[in-house]
């Protein structure tokens, strides 16, 4: 078994302390680490079960910072560059072996990366600097991108491995990934994402926000009665597309969409 690399963890009070204490809009790493030096009790590692690896967190932060620089950090930021940054970070994080363990599911691990090592990048990506972007959770600046990457990855053998990450709108991502009952089941989440792509191809992206909200509500209801993730992939694809098409008012014959080829299907 590969030994788990234990990453630094920052509790919620530590995040609040940093946000309260930093003086600048875009805090430097040194500024933040100085604050943590004074409040070391906020910072911790899992007590056992792997090898402590603070340098792994530093490596991850370095690579994310380089991606940010390719998209205009720290000088400029517009909607387009921010979307491109999100997509590239998602695919990069989704492909990191070190993040395939239980550590990456922990909110406090992402809180450390976002609040301590990458606070300036978070401030650049989210100029309003909402606390939820620094704290761990589904709205954390990077945790949300990681979960998108690992969930929507179609696998190294797929013809277009990251088509779902690049294809979905931000609203569509939020509708899936802020609902644990959908996001927690990778097969279901990927099928919903795929149905979004197929439907948007029919009716255009402009109407998809309204369609996605109604469709995810219906999928959640259906999932209470039918264990959707248990359906064979082609049946599931058809079920979810039927819901999207009904909501979107697409009345012609359903397309024979091929189930997505995935690494674990």
């Amino acid at each position, binding site marked *: 078994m590969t030994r788990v690399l234990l990453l630094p963890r920052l509790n919620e009070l530590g995040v609040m302390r940093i946000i309260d204490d930093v003086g600048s809009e875009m805090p430097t790493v040194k500024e933040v680490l100085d604050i943590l030096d004074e409040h070391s009790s906020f910072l911790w590692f*899992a007590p*056992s079960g792997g090898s402590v690896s603070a340098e792994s967190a530093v490596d991850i932060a370095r690579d994310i910072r380089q991606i940010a620089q390719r998209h205009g950090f720290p000088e400029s930021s517009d909607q387009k560059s921010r979307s491109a940054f999100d997509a590239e970070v998602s695919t990069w994080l989704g492909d990191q072996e070190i993040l395939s*363990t239980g550590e990456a*599911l*922990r*909110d406090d691990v992402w809180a450390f990366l976002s609040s301590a090592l990458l606070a300036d990048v978070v401030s650049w990506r989210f100029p309003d600097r909402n606390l939820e972007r620094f704290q761990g959770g589904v709205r954390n600046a990077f945790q949300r991108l990681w979960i998108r990457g690992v969930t929507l990855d179609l696998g190294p053998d797929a013809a277009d491995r990251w088509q779902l990450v690049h294809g979905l709108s931000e609203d569509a991502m939020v509708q899936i990934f802020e609902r644990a009952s959908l996001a927690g089941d990778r097969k279901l989440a990927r099928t919903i994402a795929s149905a979004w792509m197929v439907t948007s191809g029919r009716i255009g992206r402009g109407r998809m926000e309204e369609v996605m909200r109604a469709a995810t509500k219906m999928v959640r209801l259906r999932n209470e009665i*039918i264990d959707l993730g248990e359906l064979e992939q082609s049946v599931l694809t058809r079920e979810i597309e039927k819901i999207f098409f009904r909501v979107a008012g697409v009345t012609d014959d359903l397309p024979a969409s091929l189930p997505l080829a995935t690494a674990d299907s």
Partner: protein
Amino acid sequence: MPATDIFEGWDYERDLEVGARFEIDFDRAAAQLGIPLDQLSMALVLKAGTGSGKIPRRMDRIQTRKLVPSAPEFEVRAVVTGSRLSGRLLLEAGIVLDAEPASPGALSPAMPGARLWTDRKDILLEDGGTARFPLETISFASAFAGQPHASAPWYVHWRSGLLDADFGGAVRVYVNADYTELCERFVAGDPATVQAVLGDVMSQMIENVVSMPDCDDALEDCVAGSVGDQVRNWLDMAFPGQSLNKIRAEMTGAPGRFRATIMAAAQVGEGE
């Protein structure tokens, strides 16, 4: 050994072997489902969930087994990889319809995958994750030095307006460890102390949410495990069967009774 609510001494290097025993009464199941016995096809699905929040962040199917009348008693076993667990293990065993029956009853489930029965066991691992009510004891003198709430007995950290946020991630109750006696009582689960703290948490959140102009729609759309879902459950506990308008009128017209009603309902939540 039987699964307990908290599994002590676990870490990433420890894979967990899980197992469960089942006994299925096929005749009774067929009768209750309105499906002829010879057409009843069922499967047992064992899932393992992990990650914080009331609904686990990741839910994996670890075993699916077709059920046959010739083996009504059976056991399933599976190994859950320790390195992929995070804070908790939620085991879910479900029985689903495995094939469409030829002549189901009018109200019978008919689609493969239809949920027929489910049972869950939530086990806290390592530091307990955040599957329990999110709280911790901490010295306020140190954590909140110089701040106005530094001498408060407890502090509910949460932000209003985020009804869709996961409850475990958005809310945290800090109990002031500097108040030794209070802290000891709280940790020991003294009913009156827990009721006072929980009642305060419920009051704060209910009052805030009920005051929101569009809370009716917002609460209706909240997913299981979210802040809104928890507030909705508390409203059902404290004000069963009452409309939000009536609850709102009680809050503004009789605030004392309103608060006392919530405090009384907090007694029910001892297990939280």
